[in-house]
């Protein structure tokens, strides 16, 4: 266990959902102030230190130039700042867990920098931080992540349950989250969390989180693990009340489905990077929403667990270690992420939202998913259809709050 994982386990033992913001500022003083504000929120919180986009892609020269020029960066350049600077940011925060968030397909320098600064938690994955976010060949990402994991002794969260942010059917999210966690464990990581991002239908999401827990219990019984839910990552409601409703629903989903931690979004999401105050408000609102519900042990069964199990087993049956198996699986299209433009993704799978608001497969490509799971009614993909699907959750929540219906 690690400081980060210990804190989550302690909160879970007391029946409290841990809530966490997204937050990263270039300035050490602002970063420190942000972390202090999160610690001080009326909620069980952990902190986040998100790196900037230049650091993510390994362009540390551009990050340094931006620091010198006073240009605005969209995060904390943890590799470019001196380790002493980062230690000063964290000074006196001992006992307050902070996770470094980065989005990098080559996290080696970032892992080294966070360890040097005394931090013990980060996130990502060889697939989830390569296919949607990088131009790097998947093979290179798997190699970089193997090395980074071998050197790492802290808590590592898979981002596999968040692929593409939206419109990826839950079974594939669950499978990728489990497969990346298996990859981490193979490379020596002993404390992991598995992610799942809120999608378009609360019942389907609850089923997915139950499936994730079932598969984690089966495949990761020898390591410490917990589940983290992400508030909706797609196009966000534009109204403050719509945004708050969606974020509150994510908190309720997390508790009902038995997740231990939640990454929130703010009312500013649709418009810009949130302020610290907006983040604190989102954390406090999420904590309040979480405390109004409790764990529900049953859920619907529309095949998410069966599909996810088939995907995980198909990959693990391939020869070689988990990284090699993941590479082969993507090469053969046994894993195929809808709408993902990366050259190493087969690109034959498509998805849509059905009339009940659930995510469905339009086509599954070569994935080992039964044809009966394919809903042929939604196969047209025009720009208008895609835009409507991308905005559906936002419009729904904006409209619902306009009617004053908070259900």
């Amino acid at each position: 266990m690690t400081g980060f994982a210990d804190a989550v386990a302690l909160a879970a033992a007391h029946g409290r959902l841990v809530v966490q913001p997204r937050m990263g500022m270039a300035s050490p003083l602002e970063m420190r102030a942000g972390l202090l504000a999160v610690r001080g929120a009326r909620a069980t919180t952990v902190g986040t230190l998100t790196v900037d986009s230049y650091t993510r892609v390994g362009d540390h020269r551009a990050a340094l130039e931006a620091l010198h020029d006073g240009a605005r960066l969209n995060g904390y350049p943890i590799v470019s700042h001196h380790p002493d600077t980062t230690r000063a940011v964290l000074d006196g925060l001992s006992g307050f867990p902070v996770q470094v968030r980065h989005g990098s397909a080559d996290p080696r320098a970032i892992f080294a920098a966070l360890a040097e600064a005394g931090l013990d938690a980060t996130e990502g994955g060889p697939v989830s931080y390569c296919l949607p976010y990088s131009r790097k060949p998947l093979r290179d990402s798997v190699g970089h992540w193997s090395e980074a994991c071998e050197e790492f002794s802290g808590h590592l969260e898979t981002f596999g349950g968040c692929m593409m942010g939206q419109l990826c059917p839950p079974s594939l999210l669950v499978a990728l989250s489990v497969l990346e966690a298996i990859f981490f464990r193979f490379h020596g990581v002993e404390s992991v969390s598995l992610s799942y991002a809120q999608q378009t239908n609360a019942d389907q999401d609850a089923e997915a989180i139950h499936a994730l827990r079932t598969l984690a219990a089966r495949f990761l019984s020898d390591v410490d693990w917990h589940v983290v839910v992400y508030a909706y990552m797609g196009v966000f409601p534009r109204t403050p009340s719509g945004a708050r409703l969606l974020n509150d629903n994510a908190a309720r989903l997390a508790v009902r489905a038995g997740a231990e931690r939640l990454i929130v979004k703010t009312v500013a999401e649709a418009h810009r990077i949130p302020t610290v105050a907006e983040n604190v408000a989102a954390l406090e609102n999420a904590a309040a929403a979480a405390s109004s519900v409790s764990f529900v042990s049953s859920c619907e069964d529309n095949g998410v667990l069966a599909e996810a199990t088939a995907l995980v087993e198909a990959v693990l049956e391939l020869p070689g270690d988990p990284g090699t198996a993941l590479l082969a699986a993507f090469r053969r299209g046994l894993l195929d992420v809808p709408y993902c433009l990366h050259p190493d993704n087969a690109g034959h799978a498509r998805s849509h939202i059905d009339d009940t608001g659930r995510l469905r497969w339009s086509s599954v490509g070569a994935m080992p998913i039964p044809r009966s799971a394919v809903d042929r009614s939604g196969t047209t993909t025009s720009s208008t259809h895609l835009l409507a699907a991308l905005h559906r959750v936002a419009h729904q929540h904006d409209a619902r709050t306009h009617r004053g219906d908070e259900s």
Partner: protein
Amino acid sequence: MNNLVLLSGTASDSHTWNLVYLQLLLEEEGYRVVNLGACVPPVLLADECEAEQPDLVVLSTVNGHGYQDGPRALAEVRGRPGLAAVPVVIGGKLGTGGPEPAQADALRAAGFTEVFDDDTAITRFREFIAAFVLASTADSVS
């Protein structure tokens, strides 16, 4: 005129839904689209432009670094043979704090044909590509 659009994210931007959507939109308007995807460094963008000789280059970015990344990408493209005059447009969420008209003007001054960075971006972009098709058709007729 071969109706080819080169569509690309910027060097530091990992988002792709904008690119998936714009590809469909452009294809429905009758363009062929080469979609370079996320995190395209200026040199790769310019290499691809040189190889493809597109009729229009569309940069789309939503990570808040567009005002900084845009000019670097454009400078590299403009420096290549045959690309001094190719129309290049940019759009999305270009700054970390919402639209900044002065920064948009700076992008136009740097040589971007058009900048789509506010609430009307998609509407104006659709109008732009519709007018662009008309103008190209008129060119090829004359």
